[in-house]
Structure formats: C-alpha cells, structure tokens
C-alpha cells in the first residue's frame, strides 16, 4: 500500500467553549481529489488550517506523505500548497513581486523562481498582467493570482479553501477548469466548499462536515445510496391530491408518496417505469396533471437527510 498524500487522525480544535472541529479523520491518496463539503461555520477552514500547520491542533495527528505536520518549520509544509479563503496577497505589489516573495519563502532559487513564476502565471492565465499591481485586478484575477502563489513550489497536494466565493460566473468557470487541469496532471486536491455542485463536479471523494464532525464520507453515489435517497417524481396537479397520494402509496414501485400544496411527491426506485402508471392513476382519481418533474437525489438531499438542515440557508 502506498503512503497517502495526507492522513489526518482525530483532529480537534476548540475556541474557548466552542468546539470548531471535533475529531475529524480522513485520508487523501496521491492524485486524488477530495471535497470537504459543509455549510459556513462547519469547521472547514479550521480543519485545513491545522492540516497546513497554521493552527495548533488540540488533539490528533497530521501526516503529509508520511511526514508529521507541525506549526513550526517542517518538511511536510513543502508538500502542501494552500489557497486561503481570503485573498492573501499584498495589494500594493505586482503579481510577480508577490510571487517572488512567496517563492523565496518556499526556498526556490532565483533562476528556478523566474521560470516557475512564468509557468504558474500561464496556468492561471495572468502572464500578461504579471507587472500590474494586485489592487488593480478584478476579483476573479485576484483569486487566480491567489491560486498561483500556492503552485510555485510544485506541491503534492493543493488545498483550496472556498476558492470561488464571491467570484463572477465566468471567473468561477475558469477557476474550476484550471483546478480540473491540475487534477488531470496528477496533483492531489483538497477542495472545501459549501457549493454542492462544485464538490460534485471536481471531487473523487467527498467528506460531509457539519458542526465540526465529518458526518459521512465517500464517492457521490456511495453517499447517496448510503443514506437511502431515491429519485422523486413530482406532479404539479389540481384535484384531490390526498386521495391520490393514498392510492399511489399502494402501488408496487412507489416507496413513499406525499401530497402538498398543489403538488404530489412520489419517491420511486425507477422513475422511468413509474411515470406512466402514476399519470393513469391520477386520471382515474380525477386529478388534472399540469406538469411532471423527476428530481434525482443529490448531495444537497444527502446533507438534508444527514443533518436535517439545508447546506445553504
């Protein structure tokens, strides 16, 4: 078995009485992309701050490719690249000046640094803005420059803390594409987000975090099947929906049925096969169907099921 790129065990951190992270453990394999999905305040930033050696953990241990991570100067730090949640750049310096600074802190030699800066600027498509001050950049450009600074030293694992928050849709798309490219090239990625779509799109495996605990972990389909979520057929209709719901729940393919305000929701194993009999049944009950939707289960519904609350409020 190969050493995982990152192994976190029993991480714990409290601020006074408030437990921010409560026994979080996970592993990320080489080249794997792992998503930490949870609402604001779940403990994502606290977890990765400990993982990157910024914050002293109250308990637990962290290994990066087998090397222990500490808050001081340690080898493990060379293997990680952190893209902080907030832009961490000097606004009054140019993109290149910022990169020179962070590159030198990573121990890159002057000549190595020069070629690396050109390379990372190309990766984030900022090569023609290298000499411009960061405070003149758009929000999306700042975000990309923020990512570039984490790539200089060729980390094994790129840690991104909500890198698309407050970014326009175009920049967001280009950031997500860029991360996908880095993954394709073999870089392991830890991606924290409260956007379910991003986790679904980018991550091989997802850990769902809430109130400092990792409540579930797995691939997207593993998570969905583990919590027993099934597709839902939603009929927009008028008539006696309550009677229809009772009748529908007696049907063999139907798992559950419930009537709401002008809507009937029917959980089924296979929507394609359940659809025609349902509409027939509605007609026979004198219910006029105005529309039909099939809702596939997603991480949002997994989260709702696990925690009883929505990912975003």
């Amino acid at each position, binding site marked *: 078995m190969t050493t995982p790129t990152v192994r976190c065990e029993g991480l714990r951190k409290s601020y006074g009485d408030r437990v921010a992270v409560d026994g979080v453990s996970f592993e990320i394999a080489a080249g794997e992309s792992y998503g930490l999905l949870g609402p604001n305040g779940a403990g994502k930033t606290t977890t990765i701050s400990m993982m990157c050696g910024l914050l002293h953990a109250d308990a637990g241990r962290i290994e990066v490719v087998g090397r222990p991570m500490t808050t001081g100067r340690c080898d493990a730090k060379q293997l990680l690249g952190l893209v902080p949640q907030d*832009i*961490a*750049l000097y606004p009054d310096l140019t993109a290149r000046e910022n990169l020179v600074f962070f590159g030198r802190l990573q*121990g890159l030699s002057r000549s190595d640094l020069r070629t690396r800066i050109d390379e990372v600027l190309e990766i984030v498509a900022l090569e023609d803005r290298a000499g411009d001050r960061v405070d003149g950049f758009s929000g999306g450009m700042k975000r990309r420059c923020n990512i570039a600074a984490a790539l200089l030293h060729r980390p094994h694992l790129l840690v991104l803390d909500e890198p698309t928050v407050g970014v326009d849709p175009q920049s967001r798309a280009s950031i997500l594409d860029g991360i996908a490219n880095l993954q394709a090239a*073999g870089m392991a990625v830890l991606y924290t987000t409260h956007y379910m779509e991003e986790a679904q799109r980018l991550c091989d495996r997802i850990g769902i975090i809430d109130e400092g605990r990792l409540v579930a972990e797995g691939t997207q389909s593993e998570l969905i099947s583990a919590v027993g979520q099934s597709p839902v057929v939603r009929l927009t209709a008028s008539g006696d929906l309550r009677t229809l719901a009772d009748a529908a729940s007696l049907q063999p393919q139907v798992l559950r049925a419930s009537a709401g305000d002008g809507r009937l929701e029917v959980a089924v194993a296979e929507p394609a096969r359940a659809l025609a009999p349902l509409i027939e049944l509605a007609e026979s009950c004198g219910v006029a169907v105005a529309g039909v939707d099939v809702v596939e289960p997603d991480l949002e519904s997994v989260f709702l099921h696990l925690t009883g609350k929505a990912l975003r409020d």
Partner: protein
Amino acid sequence: MSAPPLSTAPEPVPPTAPSRPSSPSVWTVARAVAAVDLRRLARDKVALFFMLFLPFVLILALGVAFPSDAGKVRVGVVARETTGVGGKLLEAVGGADNLDVRFYDDDRAVVRDIQLGEIDAGIIIPAGLTEVVESGGTGQVRLELDPANQASAMLRNMLDAVVENQALVLTAARFAENQTGVDQQRALAAAEEQVRQLTRGQVQDRTVGGSGVPISGFAFTALSQLILFMFINSLAGGSSLVEMRTLGVADRAMTAPVSTAGLVGGITMSRFAIALGQGFLIAVVSAVAFGVDWGDPAVLVVVVTLFALVSAGAGVLMGALARTPDQAVAFGIPLALVMAALGGCFFPLSVAPPVMQVVARVLTPQAWATGALTESVFDGASLPDVAVNVVVLCGFAALYLSLGVVLLQRRLERR
C-alpha cells in the same frame, strides 16, 4: 470583462518532480521579508510624506517661528555674589551689548519666566563663588537655558569663558604672589592683563563657533524633530506589520517551511533600517540646509543608531499588539507625541519640574536620546560624557525589541 480561460497546459506531475527546493535559511527568509517591507514603504505615499517631507517642513517652520538671534537676548540674573568672580560675571553680562539683563531674587521665578518665554536664559551666581573658583572648583554658576535658543548657547559659552578666565587670573595672581612676594593687588592686576592677552581670542571664538558660523537657531528644533520623527514614524509603521497579518500574508508565509525567526527577523531588520534612514536623513539635511552643527559625530551616530533600535522595537511591538492597521496609527501617533513631549522634544527637559524630569527618564527613551544630543550639540559633550545615556538607550532597545519580537512571534504562531 471576460475572464480568460485557465490554460489547458498540463502541470508537470508533482510527485515525480526531481528538484524539490530545500527549506530556505532564516537569513533568506529575513531578506525576502525585509525587501518586501521596504518595497511597500517606497510605494506608500502617505508614509513617505511623513518621513521625507513633514520633518523638514516642521524644522523650518519652528526654526523660523522662534528665531533665537533676533534682537537682544533677555537674561534673568540672580546675583548672590557681587564681588570677585561674581562681580566679573556681572560686569561681563552687563557690558555685553546684545544682552538685556533683568535681576531676580528667586531661582524659581527665573525658571518660570523662561518657560513663559519672558526671558531667554537665567544666570544664578551663588554666594561664595570666588572661593570655589580659587580652590579650582567649577560648575558653580547655574545657568537656566532654553536650548532651543541659539543666543542662550552663546551666553553659556561667554559665561564659561569668564569663569575660566577668572580661575586663571586667580591662580596666576596667587602664583605671582607666592613666588615674587609682590602685593596681592598688583599681582592680580598683572595676572589679569596677562590672561586677557592670552584668552581674548578664545572668548571671541567660543561665542561664534569654530567655523565662524553661529550655532544654528535650528539646532534644538532639528534634534528634537529627529527623535520625534524616528519614533512616531516607527510606531505608525507598525500598521504595515498588522497588515501582514490582516491581509493573510503572514498566514500564507507560515504555510511555507519557514521559522517565525526568519519572518520576525526580517521585519525587525527593515524597521530598523527605516528608522535609521529617517534619523540620518534628518541629521544630514538639517546640517546641510539649516546649518545645524551636530557636535561630536560619534555621539550622533551612536545615539541615532540606538534610537533606531529603540524605535524599531517599538514599531514591532505596536505591530504585534494592534488588531487593525488603523489602530496602530490611531494609538501610535498620540503615544509617540506624548512620549516626545515628556521626553523633551517640544521643550527642553531642563525647564520641566524635577518630578517630571524623573518621570520622563523612567518612561521615555526620548529623554535620554534628546539629552545626549543636546549635550553634544550645545555643550560640546563627547561620547564618554553621555555614556549613561548610551547605556540606558541600550536597555530601552533591548526591552522593546525583545518584547516586540516575542509578541509578534506569538501572533504569527497564532498562540
């Protein structure tokens, strides 16, 4: 504006990358941090205005507003001896046509009137002065001075010369009396004539300074502004250290394989360089543009260097304590002004009540720095004469620097 797509060029696979850089040395990190700090200062127009422009505007304005060589110098005299050396002093003071003499009974009234600006200087001639001078003692005439006042410095030189001459005269007369047996009166007269011949040039010289240029009226202003600005700009500059934290740059730096020693060392280095540059800039410009004679260069170099360490330490401390950059400025500037006022940057500490003088020396490094520079500029003190000031400034520097470094280190480690 449309965001360009990120490049599709694949990144080289990291785990197989052969040349992983080694962790940078403490020195490399410190240099990188200092370089960025200085570069940012060079782009900070407000900070540059405060460092490169404001001090000279103030020196010019204060120097012109309080001219020291306009008209007569007003001297308050308390005469407790009117014969012998005391008599000679009164004669010298009364005969100088650039002096306007007022007589007082009370020492404290003299000091008060100096503070009120009623008179420029005071001379207190103690009873029994002649006896002391005869026996070879010195320093018995007390001079209340406003060092900001160029004329008062001239006055001091003049009085020094008179007392010195009198000492010579008395010694020579006694010598003549003992050796030749001539009567005392004649010996005294002869000795006086001899000494006058010998020292006339000296008296003249001392009142106008070595180069024939009078001591600049800007001298006190320049030295007090030097101390004021080194400190005030260092405290305000603490804001850039706070920014390092609030911008998240410090955290990002801590994700690199670096020790806090490198980061804090670099910041301290650049803050020291900035304070040192500020100090010597004011010294050089005021010497060249305002004709300030700084006295012993060794005193200037040592005091400015030590005070730059003190200021850098205070700046780092402020950078560690303030929560926001604005806080560093909002607390730093008033604090620096109060310390400067207490430490004799606005009026000479010598005119402050004794209790205040003690408080100032306990609390402010400014008191020791202005004290050393004042003695060098106005009294011709050399380095050994200000040894105590130097030692105390070393202590303040060590205190501020160690506190600043330890606290900033803790802040960076988020403990």
